[in-house]
């Protein structure tokens, strides 16, 4: 799957039991309070960036796939949606609520909802940011009771694989009779 070059969330549908814990963890991780109860008490809005859906009797969470050449980033007229080397995210202060990102995301991973930015209410785009601000990485991965979610680093894994291959190649070379000797 060459489109996933940066880190992304791998979902194992065979492990997912559809308990929605990842959704709650996602919503909680993006509040000031850091927990559902705390956020409710502080009257903070709760927004999950992922959604557990059911297809053909199987349940699994869907969220942003962290596209390399992300259409949501290309379409955004204000630069609110941006990509770093390792993730895509939305700067809600810049968002104008035009929904173009929602229109072009092939996976339905963006929605626009009411939020509070710098004390002012506005509507802005929401998407998974791989919990970049959370120590310990994605909250959904940490919360899933069946370990159906994992954060994958194809680049790193590819490197490791190619390193291993390179080592093997060198070994094979060394054991071969040297030409011309």
């Amino acid at each position, binding site marked *: 799957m060459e489109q996933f070059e940066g880190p992304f969330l791998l979902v194992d549908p065979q492990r997912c039991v559809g308990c929605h814990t990842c959704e709650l963890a996602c919503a909680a991780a993006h509040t000031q309070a850091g927990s559902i109860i705390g956020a409710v008490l502080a009257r903070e809005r709760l927004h999950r960036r992922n959604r557990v859906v059911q297809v053909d009797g199987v349940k699994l969470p869907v969220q942003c796939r962290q596209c390399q050449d992300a259409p949501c980033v290309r379409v955004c007229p204000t630069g609110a949606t941006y990509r770093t080397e390792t993730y895509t995210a939305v700067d809600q202060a810049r968002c104008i609520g035009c929904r173009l990102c929602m229109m072009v995301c092939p996976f*339905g991973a963006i929605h626009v909802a009411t939020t509070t930015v710098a004390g002012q209410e506005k509507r802005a785009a929401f998407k998974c940011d791989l919990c970049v601000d959370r120590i310990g990485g994605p909250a959904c991965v940490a919360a899933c009771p069946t370990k159906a979610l994992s954060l994958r680093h194809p680049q790193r894994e590819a490197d490791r694989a190619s390193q291993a291959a390179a080592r093997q190649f060198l070994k094979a070379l060394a054991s071969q009779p040297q030409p011309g000797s």
Partner: protein
Amino acid sequence: MIHLTVNERPVTVPAGARLLQAVRAAGVALPTLCYHEGLAPYGACRLCLVTLTSPPPAKLVAACVHPAVAGMIVNTETPEAVASRRLAVELLLSRCPQSEVIKNLAAAMGVRESRFPVSPPEGEMDLCVLCGLCVRVCQEAIGANAIGFVGRGGNRKVSTPFELHSEACLGCGACAEICPTGAIRLENRGPVRILYTWHTRVELHPCPQCGRFFAPQAMAFLPQKFPEIDSLWRLCPECRQQRAARQWVQQQPLDRTGTRSD
């Protein structure tokens, strides 16, 4: 990086920043209405007036547009600055006395009512404060140029050319979202999105899967620019999620072989 002083506090802002960023960096509250981080600064509402003490002579400037320069000394609480901001909000209040947003802004600045005669714009746009955010978002960000200012003086208002149905409008709704006072009325009514304020109706396509009306016809150009949504641009986000989930399940056996345990 630029070092300057706001209310006697030293602050540092990146090059190219405006005074507003410096004020915010200092943790000082300053009202704004016509400012939006995603658009170029405009300086129309005058709610963000501050005193620029140094370089002398001291003068009032709109913090959202005035560039931050090293060594500047800014004061948000001089009597002149406070009085000017109150005057600005009083004028807004006399234009839109029924706007909750303006009333709250004014109250926060200690202004209960306007000393000026109430001169609300008639009809549709009674909540419009002429901040220009909708015009700017449509022009600068969306590039559709569907709306603009018409008329002069007291008759100045925002509308479509000749106040008729706009062919240029994409129906994205960014204008309605960005309007700070909620002056722009937009409604989805079955197969049409009606932008009452702009005398415009935009046709919506039903989602081929669930039938929900979703994609504005005027956005039919998107799949040409974004080939990845070629076959699915009419699908609503929920049905795209379903589709993504189905793909994922089908791809799993492939993934599994490549899955490393680390």
